[in-house]
């Protein structure tokens, strides 16, 4: 008998379910469908496969759902889909949410606890949703002497910068939001935003602990940006391009981590520091400076910063995968789409359904995404692991590590890359 959860009664559960369904249907019929119809009558509709898309046509989807697929396919080629859903924000936010859950469960198992347990009945799988609801419903308290516009804006800009970072990541061949030639340079530019946002948020709060935390974050991020950039130069020298898609494509036979392990290690350590993860979580060191630069943030402002932090975590892990682990490249393990469905349709006894618009995704794209997600999850696991093993480092040790050891190692990595290039072993595009 659990004290926390009330006793489960099937009748009450079904009653609450029916109540919800009733209200949803009522609102949809009275408000939703009229509103959608009004919008559909006013705006100009696109022509798809020689057929004008009208609201009446949309009603025929209820009778024949297979007619939706061409519309979905047409939608998937738009920029909105790329930005909002697949390689962009939605995909990254989904992975970030999974990361938070896995982090909490994994850390709990490491520390002889159970972690989130009650929310969502199955191993606390809805805990994140509960936390989000709590943060939304909390009051936002602004310090009286804070610089209010900047203080309000900083968390929003933080999430925006993290989302901009995500936009550069190629997930599968051709699936990237911003396929720019100077992609890596763009990544450096976006990373350069974070210390500015942090110090703006910290300073505008006009409070002592956020101020110290902000200064620490500034020190840490600025001094680790240099080894970060230097450690990636080896890859750029060997591939001869700054385009992240081309860098990923150049690793079709082997990943760069085989030839540049030192660069990968330096990048991983600087990544931990940029992400303010343990052992480098000095800007949020709670026993010294309460919560560092997050001290005065409350409610959903704190939630936004957390969202931005985990988006950033996903983006850095994905960058590591793209630069050193070969991105989407991997053996083909996704089976090809069955051809008889395309030619004959799906045969279910007497019914034969021919569905136009299949397959939605190509085999290469599914395989690439699968490998990319597998590698990213692996890297995220290694980012999360130090939290259970290490205490926090001190600021002077951190800075001496960044300015002496890591920069030295990054230069060693560059010399290795130059040596490989001039010895003629490797050149732009792979083995010579």
């Amino acid at each position, binding site marked *: 008998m659990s004290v926390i959860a009330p006793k489960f009664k099937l009748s009450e559960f079904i009653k609450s379910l029916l109540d919800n369904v009733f209200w949803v249907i009522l609102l949809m019929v009275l408000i939703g469908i009229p509103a959608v119809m009004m919008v559909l009558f006013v705006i100009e509709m696109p022509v798809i496969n020689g057929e004008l898309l009208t609201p009446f046509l949309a009603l025929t989807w209820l009778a024949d759902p297979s007619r939706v697929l061409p519309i979905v396919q047409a939608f998937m080629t738009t920029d909105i889909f790329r930005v909002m859903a697949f390689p962009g924000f939605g995909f990254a936010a989904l992975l970030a949410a999974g990361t938070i859950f896995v982090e909490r469960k994994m850390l709990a198992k490491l520390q002889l*606890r159970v972690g989130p347990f009650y929310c969502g009945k199955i191993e606390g799988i809805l805990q994140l949703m509960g936390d989000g609801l709590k943060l939304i419903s909390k009051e936002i308290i602004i310090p009286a002497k804070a610089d209010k516009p900047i203080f309000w804006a900083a968390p929003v800009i933080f999430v925006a910068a993290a989302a901009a970072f995500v936009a550069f990541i190629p997930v599968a061949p051709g699936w990237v939001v911003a396929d720019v030639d100077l992609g890596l340079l763009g990544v450096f530019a976006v990373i350069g935003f974070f210390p500015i946002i942090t110090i703006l948020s910290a300073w505008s709060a006009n409070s002592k602990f956020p101020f110290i935390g902000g200064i620490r974050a500034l020190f840490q991020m600025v001094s680790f940006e240099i080894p970060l950039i230097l450690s990636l130069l080896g890859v750029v020298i060997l591939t001869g391009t700054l385009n992240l898609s081309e860098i990923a494509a150049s690793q079709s036979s082997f990943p760069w981590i085989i030839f540049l392990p030192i660069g990968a290690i330096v990048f991983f350590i600087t990544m931990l520091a940029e992400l303010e993860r343990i052992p480098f979580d000095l800007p949020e060191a709670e026993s010294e*400076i*309460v919560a560092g630069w997050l001290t005065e943030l409350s409610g959903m402002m704190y939630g936004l910063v957390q969202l931005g932090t985990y988006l950033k975590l996903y983006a850095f892990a994905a960058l590591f995968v793209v630069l050193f682990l070969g991105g989407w490249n991997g053996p083909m393990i996704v089976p090809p789409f069955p051809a008889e469905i395309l030619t004959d349709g799906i045969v279910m006894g007497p019914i034969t359904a021919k569905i136009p618009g299949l397959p939605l995704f190509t085999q290469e794209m599914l395989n690439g995404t699968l490998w990319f997600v597998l590698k990213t999850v692996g890297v995220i696991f290694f980012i999360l692991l130090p939290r259970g093993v290490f205490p*926090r*480092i001190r600021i*002077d040790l951190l800075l001496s590590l960044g300015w002496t050891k890591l920069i030295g190692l990054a230069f060693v990595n560059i010399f290795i890359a130059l040596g490989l290039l001039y010895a003629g072993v490797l050149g732009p595009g792979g083995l010579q």
Partner: protein
Amino acid sequence: MTAELPPGLALQKVDERIMTLNVGPQHPGSGHMRIVVQIDGDYIVACDPDPGYVHRGEEKMAEYRNYILNIPHLERPVIHDSCNVLYPYVLGVEELLGIEVPERAKYVRVIASELNRCIYIMYWLAIYGIFLGHSTMFMWPAGDREFLIDLMEKMTGARVTHAHFVPGGVRNDLPPNFEDVCLRQVNYFEKRIKEYAAVFYDNPILISRTKDTGVLSRQDAIRLGTTGSVLRASGVDYDLRKKEPYDVYDELDFQVPVMKEGDSYARSRIPWLDMMESCRIIREALQKMPKSGSVRVKLKPNPKGGNDTVYKRVESGRGSLGCYIVSDGKPEPYRVKLSVPSFRNLIALPYLLKGEKLGNMPSVYWSLNYWPVEADR
């Protein structure tokens, strides 16, 4: 507003570079106390510990209750170390009333006292871990502590506030089969705490953070009057269990861990070594304990002491803990004074933190083996 200052007083000039931080009482890095820290950049220029937020008047309360009723509330200052806090009071009352304690009760007391020392140190270690940002080292000791708490529950009936020691022995005899369970749990516990070295004490980041920080030299440790693990980490071999053996400590074979460095690392390592010695003591005491016999001398109801004073002290989880009892022939003591190790160790804090970095503050502060509630009494 410029008010005329009384003669002899002057306003303190404040350097603009110096920032004053109030660490506590509502701060994750303080106990129930406040530390006013003045920092210049990352360096601490002055530190002013400000205890007193949890003063409960235990000593005054003791003047209104008789010798037996004093037992439950006098253990409140450190509920995790309740047997050791009560120990000097009980020893003192026994001397006042002239009671001879049975042999078996003495062994039971030593076992309970050592178990309690481990329980206290585990709690202390958990907080030390989370102060350094090591969340695993918070969860592991807090979890492994449960083995010993279960043992104490078997022995006394209560999980933390035992009130087990009474003048004349202990309240109850051991439950049947206690020796086997205790031996098994203590052996497992010792195996467990040896694993802490891999994840915590041999961790290179921990060593780089705590080595050579907050160094307390041998002379200063003696001059400032520190006790317990702080004194022993500075190279002074001083343990009341050896120097002034009480009950049956002189019949048991154990060593007192001493380190010479006097830094935060040594101060944090000594309690861990203490726990291993405690396990040894418990095992030996279980062997040597008389298998049967009385554990309590029957007292007169409402016993009275003569016109006498007595001072007894024991080695608690934090250092030497003394209890001074003045009796004026009434059933209630005229005065009970606790001389607590926490307060004496806290005196060293301003000396140690001066010139340190702000990042060292939690590790130095908590390595002093300080318990705020005990210091306030």
